[in-house]
């Protein structure tokens, strides 16, 4: 079997097999993920050797479905497989005491399969399909603990936000297929015609939904209602990454105006969600806001015209953010809470976990020689080299500064406070998964030269970018460590705590009008129904009136005629008495009358 098919089929088989067998779900999921990982590595090796794998599947008439193994897709597939496998290893420990393991591991495997389909998709239809399927998987996983209050609404919100934005992808895909006449992504990319600004903006809308960019960032923080491994996967290599991956893949198509729009959205997001992270009172929600902020930086790089820089940050961020979430999950189990107020000193409970968490945090801030440093560097260099440097570079630097600040704030809270030693079940599995990811978060930078040669595009890194990036990161860390977030934000604090919602946010601007319209339709519906019923009643009324007129009118007439005739007959009978003299007299009178009438008529003419 071709490795291309195996990458998707292995986790998919696990997802299908687990609910059927209902035994050893964790091991089956690991088996599927492991087989998929090996297939991904084979694919990557092939791609770096210049092999171009492709698989054509039956789809719609004249529009077959394709999976392709280009260097970029193979690289992303490997990323998904690695992070997926490590998060699953962690989840074996994390879910040890949950009694719905079957459902959890089946859905996780399905999630990985869907994401693999997305990154390997060679045509727009399969991409769109996978795009929506990862939305479904996240709905199911965010809603995993569906009996808890607010979980249903969090899952619903995540699916609806992303689906609304997905309309952009639908429209963009239709436009791209219509202009090139082919559903193949490669054909679209190499048609040379480029895409219109409209297509660019539609793709941006889709990416904003999935990558939780301002003003659509709110769902991601609420999505914390799911189990922690879900958050780790969701924020690093899967759902949220899809938006950035879409833009990275289509960047060569996009006209400058669309790129500028992407850069601006990314820049605003990185600052706004960075501030939200500073104000957060919950560790997982802080990390979620940070995710939006980092994806904002990636969009800045895409907007600056260097999508490869965004790719490097995407890869580094995948390892870093999943490490951070996995660490947070351990703290959550040890303190039974994710509120920062309950987590004071939680780092001291588990120094090894805290060490991993700290390394990942420093990597995210961009401290050398950790992976995040090289990636951040590339992004800042891209923003400086862009023709819109004046706009993008300050935003990128502000984002970097804020990253340092909120990570330092989290570290301080976790470290300062009393130690409380509570046993945590399944720590060994959790530690193993976390260790693997932290090693990646530290060392991935070493792999960047390989990636650059693989994709045949070196990323420029001027010394100025290094200097600015490093000072922003260090400055941010210092600010965050020494000054409380509350004080840093000053008057912005209350607004940041509401997630910078503009006049009530999406609920007020979209949900309420939709519901009002729905109620309007319902009223119209009742009106129409009443109208039909009124017509029906009118018909019945008419029928009754006809019947009444029949009863009293025509029937009455006929009955009165009958009565009259009968009466007449009765009268006539009295005349026929049988007395001859009397009948003779009547005859004479009658004859006289007839003669009189005849005589009068004769006279008259």
């Amino acid at each position: 079997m071709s490795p291309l098919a195996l990458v998707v089929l292995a986790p998919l088989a696990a997802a299908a097999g687990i609910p059927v067998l209902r035994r050893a779900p964790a091991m089956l999921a690991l088996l599927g993920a492991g087989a998929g990982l090996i297939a991904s590595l084979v694919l990557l090796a092939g791609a770096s050797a210049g092999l171009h794998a492709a698989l054509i599947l039956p789809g719609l008439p004249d529009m077959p479905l394709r999976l392709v193994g280009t260097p970029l897709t193979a690289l992303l597939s490997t990323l998904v497989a690695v992070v997926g496998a490590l998060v699953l290893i962690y989840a074996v420990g994390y879910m040890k005491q949950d009694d719905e393991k079957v459902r959890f591991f089946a859905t996780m495997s399905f999630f990985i399969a869907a994401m693999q389909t997305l990154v390997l998709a060679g045509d727009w239809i399969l991409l769109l399909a996978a795009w929506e399927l990862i939305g479904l998987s996240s709905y199911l996983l965010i809603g995993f603990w569906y009996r808890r209050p607010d979980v249903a609404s969090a899952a619903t919100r995540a699916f609806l936000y992303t689906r609304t934005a997905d309309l952009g992808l639908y429209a963009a895909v239709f436009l791209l297929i219509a202009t090139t006449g082919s559903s193949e992504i490669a054909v679209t990319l190499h048609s040379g015609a480029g895409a219109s600004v409209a297509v660019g903006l539609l793709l941006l809308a889709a990416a904003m939904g999935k990558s939780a960019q301002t003003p659509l960032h709110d769902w991601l923080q609420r999505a914390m209602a799911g189990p922690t491994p879900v958050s780790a996967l969701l924020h690093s290599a899967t759902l949220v990454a899809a938006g950035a991956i879409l833009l990275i893949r289509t960047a060569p198509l996009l006209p400058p105006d669309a790129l500028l729009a992407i850069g601006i959205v990314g820049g605003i997001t990185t600052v706004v969600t960075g501030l939200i992270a500073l104000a957060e009172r919950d560790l997982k929600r802080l990390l979620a806001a940070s995710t939006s902020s980092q994806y904002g930086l990636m969009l800045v790089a895409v907007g600056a015209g260097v999508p490869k820089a965004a790719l490097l940050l995407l890869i580094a961020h995948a390892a870093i953010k999943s490490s951070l979430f996995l660490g947070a999950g351990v703290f959550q189990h040890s303190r039974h809470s994710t509120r920062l107020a309950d987590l004071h000193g939680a780092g001291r409970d588990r120094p090894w976990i805290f060490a991993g968490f700290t390394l990942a945090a420093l990597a995210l801030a961009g401290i050398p020689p950790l992976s995040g440093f090289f990636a951040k560097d590339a992004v800042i260099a891209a923003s400086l080299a862009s023709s819109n440097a004046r706009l993008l570079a300050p935003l990128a630097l502000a984002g970097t500064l804020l990253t340092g600040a909120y990570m330092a704030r989290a570290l301080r809270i976790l470290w300062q406070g009393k130690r409380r030693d509570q046993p945590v079940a399944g720590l060994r599995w959790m530690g193993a998964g976390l260790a693997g990811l932290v090693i990646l978060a530290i060392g991935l930078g070493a792999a960047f030269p390989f990636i650059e040669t693989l994709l045949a595009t070196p990323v420029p890194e001027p010394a100025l970018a290094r200097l600015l990036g490093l000072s922003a990161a260090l400055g941010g860390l210092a600010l965050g460590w020494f000054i409380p977030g509350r004080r840093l934000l000053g008057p912005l604090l209350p607004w940041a705590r509401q997630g910078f919602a503009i006049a009530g946010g999406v609920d007020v601007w979209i949900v309420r009008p939709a519901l009002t319209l729905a109620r309007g339709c319902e009223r119209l519906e009742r009106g129409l129904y009443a109208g039909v019923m009124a017509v029906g009643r009118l018909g019945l009324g008419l029928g009754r009136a006809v019947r009444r007129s029949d009863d009293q009118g025509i029937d009455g007439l006929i009955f009165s005629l009958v009565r009259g005739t009968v009466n007449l007959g009765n009268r006539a009978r009295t005349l026929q008495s049988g007395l001859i003299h009397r009948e003779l007299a009547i005859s004479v009178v009658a004859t006289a009358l007839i003669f009189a009438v005849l005589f009068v008529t004769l006279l008259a003419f």
Partner: protein
Amino acid sequence: MLPIVSITLFLPLLGALLIMAARKAPVRVVHAIGIGTSALTLASAVWMWSRGVLPVGFAQVEQIDWMPTIGAAYRVGVDGISLPLVLLTALLFLLTFIFSAKVRERPHAYVVLMLLLETASIGTFTALDALLFYVFFEISLVSMYFMIAGWGHEGRQRAALMFFLYTLLGSLPLLLAILGLYLGSNPHTFDMRVWIAHPPLTGIAAMLALVAMLFTFAVKIPLFPLHTWLPAAHVEAPAAGSVILAGVMLKFGAYGLIRFALQMTPEAFRYAAVIILIFGVVSALYGAFAALAQTDLKRLVAYTSVNHMGYVVVGVAIAALAIDPAVRALALDGAVLQMVSHGLVTGALFFLVGMLQDRAHTREMARFGGLLKGLPILGWSFVLAAFASLGLPGLAHFPAEFEIFLATLRVEPVALIVILGIVVTAGLYLRAIGQVFLGEPRAQWKGLPDLNARELLTMIPLLVLIVGVGVAPAWVLDVIHTTTATLHF
């Protein structure tokens, strides 16, 4: 060659006669005859499927003289548009008989009526003679009336009468149009193949015939604002009746729209296509928003039917407007596949709502909560069917809607606004799932039994097919595309 179309068509009628002959038969035997006959019918429909269709015109045509003096004959046959619908009909009826095996109230009459309805439905899709079509079309109406009036819920008499009068009045214009087409054809004939090959009417006569047909089919589809009978009928109809009504009978309207309106008065249809498109778009969006406001689960599903059938109308109108034959085929492929998908998905949803009502005796969503815990199979089946209904890729509606929307963008980009419907349906289904199945289980609903063997047997084929059509639509689309690719009008 075995006349397999006629066999498929009259097998259910034979079953009905058998039950009428054995009037004293016990209830179990009656249901067994119903299930057995419809299973044979399905087998025979599968046989039809295996014989396939021709690239041009109709395949498997069977013909017997009936009234030669007026040019009416018994003519049946299929093409890529009707064959999938015949298969869908045979399948849905079999599942309905399995589901209805619990009916204890006048079971003889029930099974006879359903079998009569099955013959009428298959006849509507296979008839190639306009008179025959009209006869089957009307018989189905009468059987459904008795179905609702005899086995429905509380307000059934009123709903049945409304349904009957609405659709009876609705179908009269079709009779006029058929007479018009008959008088326009030379020599006079009721042969639909002749009418399709050489549209008999032109100019104002064709337009009048089209308007008459559109009225009939718009009631049946149903299209806003002629849809008001639908929620009323669904609310009162028994679950099995709802499945047949939504899964099969709504397709009469959409099928007629293509077969009669589009193919027999093509010039006039093209002329009026923009107006038809507007009606389709408004209907789809209106259905979605009206569904969003519902609190009764069954009414909600009923209104999403208005939404989904609106997409079918959009697809047909776009096909009429398209100049490029490839885009025209794309739009029609989408419209026909949408009919099949809607039959599967809405059929599944109405069955599930019926199963829920059998247990809880209510359909008010706000009264439920947390049912997923106690009824996992029913709950997950509903989740799957609901996600199919909101157009999730990998499930039945996605390929159809994708094709319709893609064709729409290429022909009339403004009409792509209809795509907003998929977000609204997503919202309303997620809300319904949240209210009914998620959350903490309520004490009131503890101990409700999950699906039993009979219900599982009903649901599994539908769920498998929903996934099957969604993942690999090619096996249905190839048949549809054989015909649509060469369709000229």
